[in-house]
């Protein structure tokens, strides 16, 4: 950048730019005030939850309890990741719980009862997810059926199918010794691998940031200050290393959780760095404008519904592995609402056009922490349902209020 010529994007003197750390902090608070809450609700939520539950029962923060929590996060989190996709479009899929239960039943029946190889049974379950998603998209695109209603009927239909294929016994135990079940119960990353994995996000941010910085400066655009970048990467790495160290005091980091995080990272890339992701946000923000830009809106809906049901099916497969059974209870109860609540708590708007893949990860940690804490207190499921319902209501209220504030601050 030449000395006397301002960067391309710095010629308007009305805009305050983040040059130093304190500028960045100020910008952060400005964003919060205008209703762009980001990860703040999650952090506040986690702190409150940890303080409350660990004072009621110190086991809550014990390493091995947290490891169990991560196992549980992976199953419902996978479902939540799919929910993020449909919420981005301002649609909903209320049948993800049933879908996961049906998928888990498919795995049990095909594998244990009919003797299929495990990979084939898993593939069949996932294929079921693809088909169901495609069906919702068909109903939505061709018949204009609201996804709310389509998925509500899907909820009942798939619950019926789950009960039907499980037959009168209603429950199939999966062989404990199989790698499939071990994956959901005991398979843990080696310590060194977990530490290595903890270094990756920070390194990724740093390298990505540096190369973006270089290209921006070369194109005479302003770039993020170097200190910000280093601080962000450093803080993240320190946090993750601490988490891994703490978990390694117990059993360690589950592979299943690693798989979930990997999918979150892939989804994040797809949503933020590809044309498909851009189109998702566009359709969610203003469907007609997206159509007039030449985006194939129907295909975007198809991709979102298919992804959502497929990830729900995958979540069901993981939960079968986690519980070592395919039962009539799989996917029922609060699974549906937990998955939706997680996406909303993580910062995905119910109104479409706002959200991120991280929402699934952050939100599900909050949800599982609550559910785990309540279980430790030996509360009956009646109370657990009431509390989870309350949490979802709070999350939606925060979303609505934040949206109102964003509208009045021109942040849509």
């Amino acid at each position, binding site marked *: 950048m030449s000395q006397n010529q301002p960067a*391309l*994007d710095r010629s*308007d003197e*009305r*805009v305050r730019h983040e040059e130093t750390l304190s500028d960045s902090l100020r910008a952060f608070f400005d964003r919060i005030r205008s209703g762009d809450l980001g990860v703040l609700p999650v952090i506040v939520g986690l702190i409150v939850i940890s303080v409350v539950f660990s004072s009621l029962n110190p086991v809550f923060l014990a390493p091995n309890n947290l490891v169990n929590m991560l196992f549980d996060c992976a199953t419902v989190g996978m479902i939540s990741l799919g929910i993020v996709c449909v919420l981005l479009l301002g649609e909903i899929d209320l049948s993800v719980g049933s879908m996961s239960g049906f998928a888990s039943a498919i795995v049990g029946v095909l594998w244990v009862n009919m003797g299929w190889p495990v990979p084939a049974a898993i593939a069949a379950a996932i294929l079921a997810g693809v088909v169901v998603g495609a069906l919702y998209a068909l109903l939505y695109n061709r018949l204009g059926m609201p996804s709310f209603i389509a998925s509500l009927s899907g909820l009942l239909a798939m619950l019926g199918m789950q009960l039907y294929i499980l037959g009168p016994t209603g429950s199939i135990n999966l062989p404990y010794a199989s790698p499939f079940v071990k994956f959901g119960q005991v398979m843990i990353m080696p310590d060194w691998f977990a530490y290595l994995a903890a270094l990756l996000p920070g390194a990724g941010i740093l390298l990505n940031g540096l190369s*973006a910085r270089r*290209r*921006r400066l070369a*194109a*005479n*655009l302003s770039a993020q200050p170097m200190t910000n970048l280093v601080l962000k990467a450093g803080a993240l790495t320190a946090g993750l290393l601490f988490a891994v160290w703490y978990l390694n005091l117990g059993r360690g980091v589950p592979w299943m959780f690693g798989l979930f995080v990997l999918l979150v990272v892939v989804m994040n890339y797809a949503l933020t*760095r*590809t*044309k*498909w992701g*851009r*189109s998702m*946000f*566009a359709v*969610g*923000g*203003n469907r*007609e*404008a*997206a*159509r*007039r*830009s*030449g*985006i*194939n809106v129907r295909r975007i809906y198809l991709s979102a519904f298919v992804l959502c049901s497929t990830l729900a099916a995958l979540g069901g497969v993981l939960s079968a592995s986690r519980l070592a059974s395919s039962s009539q209870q799989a996917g029922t109860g609060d699974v549906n609402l937990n998955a939706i609540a997680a996406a909303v708590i993580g910062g995905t708007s119910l109104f479409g*056009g*706002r959200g991120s893949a991280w929402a699934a990860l952050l939100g599900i940690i909050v949800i599982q922490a609550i559910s785990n804490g309540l279980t430790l207190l030996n509360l009956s499921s009646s109370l657990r349902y009431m509390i989870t319902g309350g949490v979802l209501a709070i999350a939606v209220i925060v979303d609505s209020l934040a949206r109102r504030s*964003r*509208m009045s*601050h*021109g*942040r*849509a």
Partner: protein
Amino acid sequence: MNVTSPAAEAAPPATGETILRLRGISKKFGAVSALTDIALDVHAGEVVALVGDNGAGKSTLVKVLAGVHQPTSGTIEFCGQEVTLPDPGAALHLGIATVFQDLALCENLDVVANLFLGHEMAPWRLDEVGMEVRAWTLLRELAARIPSVREPIASLSGGQRQTVAIARSLLLNPKIIMLDEPTAALGVAQTAEVLNLIERVRDRGLGVIIISHNMEDVRAVADRIVVLRLGRNSGVFTPEASNNELVAAITGATENAVSRRSARKAAEHGEISA
């Protein structure tokens, strides 16, 4: 101007050649006939102004050409070939770019994302830097007063949004540009810049259709003025046509609200000076 890309310069339509020829275009919305038997020609290097009262069907005609609405009947010829425009993507692909009256921007996305929506650079690994540089260059040419291209559209003023919508129409190197009331919300400098731009685009051999209620702007840039009234053709004029002629064609009567008003004003004026 340097918003061209090699692709567009490879085949500029020869000036005077007919780019667009509409015959018998009708559009019904249920019981309402928004357009009836419309004929319209647009040549390369020509600015056609489309004028008419509110609800005359101007925007509907533009939307038919943009692939947003399907005509109930009629034919559209583009560069000598009969075409159908089943969706907006088809129109964009042919080289028909549109600035819609309602702008059709995504408020949750930033300026760069909106400019390149549907036509992003490097679809599998978005080239944000390339897009941002191109965005600034385009906006500079329109003398746009936009503080930051990384803010969501929701934070821009009406005129700034309009500038973004106009910039977007130029991005794909179209053969014809349709602007539906592009200067309605613009400031003095920006309006002049848009009129300049229309002339530059015309000189490059593109066809331009502009809709405006501002007769001064229309006369300033138009080569032909096509009048619509109640969804029908109501005459074609040159910019030299008198105001009375135009108003008569727009309102459909020599005796109309405008003439009555000016007559009354003249009378009042006479009384005062008497």
